[in-house]
């Protein structure tokens, strides 16, 4: 793997991790306030979003591929990634006391919450990519202007189209 590729991958992973920590924290605040308002936590609870986000990031990274996937393969990988995250977090939740899985709503709310975070992550990622695309378009426009103004490419410009031999 080249240095540039590592750099791109690391930035992408870090960006995803930060995004997940934020979204999971927000989700825990909302769900906690709605469904379990009186619960009191120790400081250890602050680790939860960090750990859950790490699971989400690792699951996304191990199911990614360097190959250009078809839409079908891509969907299969995304669903696999979601199932790994759901499974891992539900397993942790059942064995820890930060999420009240003993209550009726506990597990469904957790599963739904993970799904919402998963979808939101992709929506936000799309908007980040759209911003990148806007920047690419601005750079492309400047590049084309530069080429038009000074490139030898114009020496070859043809008005007549291809000619037959």
């Amino acid at each position: 793997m080249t240095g540039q590729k590592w750099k791109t991958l690391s930035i992408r992973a870090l960006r995803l991790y930060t995004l997940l920590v934020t979204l999971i924290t927000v989700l825990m605040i909302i769900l906690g306030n709605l469904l379990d308002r009186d619960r009191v936590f120790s400081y250890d609870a602050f680790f939860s979003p960090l750990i859950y986000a790490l699971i989400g990031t690792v699951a996304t990274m191990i199911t990614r591929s360097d190959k250009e996937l078809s839409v079908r393969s891509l969907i299969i990988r995304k669903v696999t990634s979601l199932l790994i995250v759901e499974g891992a977090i539900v397993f942790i939740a059942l064995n820890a006391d930060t999420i009240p899985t003993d209550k009726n709503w506990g597990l469904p709310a957790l599963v739904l919450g993970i799904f919402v975070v998963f979808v939101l992550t992709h929506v936000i990622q799309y908007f980040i990519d759209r911003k990148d695309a806007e920047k690419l378009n601005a750079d492309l426009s400047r590049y084309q202007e530069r080429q038009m103004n000074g490139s030898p490419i114009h020496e070859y410009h043809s008005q007549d189209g291809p000619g037959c031999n």
Partner: protein
Amino acid sequence: MKLETRKIPESEPEMVEIRYHWITDEIQEIITFVKSRQGQLSAARDGKRFEVPVVDLFYAESVDDRLFLYTAADSYEIRMKLYELEDLLKNKSFFRVSKSMIVNLMKITSVRPALNGRFSAILKNGEEIIISRKYVPALKQILKGGES
């Protein structure tokens, strides 16, 4: 094949002469190279040979070990490998966007996000091609003024 080069006075035009018995793959390769240096590529369509101006090319795609050139409305087959063509056109605004495709950056109207970190490029003839994730960092660098 015998190679002969001769220095000539500046008053005479520079030229390349190829003497052949038959147009073999090797000869065709040399012709293609020389024409590409002049801004044209020798390619075939419907059994006829055409000179395709490089500036009219939108993209080139390798399909099942065959290489095709695409202009606004036509497609041609050229007898060379994609990496050879990429090398020939590297200083003419062509850029590798996927394992099997190079595109003329001057023919891109806009870029928009596609699935999974990829981008798609809308070409001036309305066609849409995918820019692989792997090539996006290099594209950004070139558009900012780096080398293609």
